[in-house]
């Protein structure tokens, strides 16, 4: 099965890259862009058969490596 992990900056953590993207979008003439936050998207192929166990394992991967929980949150989707 496949795990899809989104790693995003926590609320309140400044995101200068998101800000730069925001400014560039406005520079290109895109109106109505209120905020931009940049994050990471990671796909993991797993040999697991139990989705709940897989999700727990991926959460452990996020805690230990994929996210720095000082500044980042993560969310996990499992696709069987």
């Amino acid at each position, binding site marked *: 099965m496949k795990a899809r992990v989104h790693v995003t900056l926590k609320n309140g*953590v*400044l995101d*200068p*890259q998101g800000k730069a993207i925001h400014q560039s979008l406005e520079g290109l003439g895109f109106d109505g862009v209120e905020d931009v936050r940049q994050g990471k998207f990671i796909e993991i192929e797993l040999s697991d058969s139990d989705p709940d166990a897989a999700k727990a394992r991926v959460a452990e991967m996020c805690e230990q490596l994929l996210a720095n929980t*000082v*500044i980042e949150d993560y969310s996990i989707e499992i696709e069987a």
Partner: protein
Amino acid sequence: MSAAVIVFPGSNCDRDVAVSLEAAMGRAPYMVWHGDSELPDVDLIVVPGGFSYGDYLRSGAMAANSPVMREVVARANAGTPTLGICNGFQVLTECGLLPGVLMRNASLKFVCRDVDLRVERADTVFTRHYREGQVIRIPVAHHDGNYFTDPDTLKALEDNRQVAFRYCAPDGSLSEDSNPNGSLANIAGVLNAGGNVLGMMPHPERLAEALLGGTDGAPMFASLAEAVAA
């Protein structure tokens, strides 16, 4: 007395810091490859600057999980003086030896120049050859040096006097203008609670002999040599 410099794929200040250590200690440090699980019995560990693992995922994140770092963490927790410079600072935060994280510079630009630092602590094994409040000139060269932590951790760092260096103006005053990367409270270097682990973004080894154009970095290596000889 002996030191070890940890070498990762992508380290690029390992030889510079080895020269500074040898000049101060009279003995070349062990150069320990990241894949080794054994670390010689040393009195000092240095995690050097560079771009370990190409800064993949986050600066320092991959290096923090390499085999030798388990032993580095164990030794540091047992009290061995451990210095992380630039990428080494990022590695020490990622492996949990130091609080906080180094984010992308607020300017989004790689910053490579000499900066003024105010010495906040002159009573550590790393800084005893400086004076508290002294302003020293040391180069920075980084893209991810923007020190950040949550307000509670920042308060604890300040209360425990764990900030070793701050970016400052030449007269020692703190301002946004003298902050090269957006770091909270102009923080350039932090200590762990025990005072035996220091991480700093500036590179003392790059101004540690007159031939390089300055010697303000040399007292750090002299401090360490004296501390570990005692």
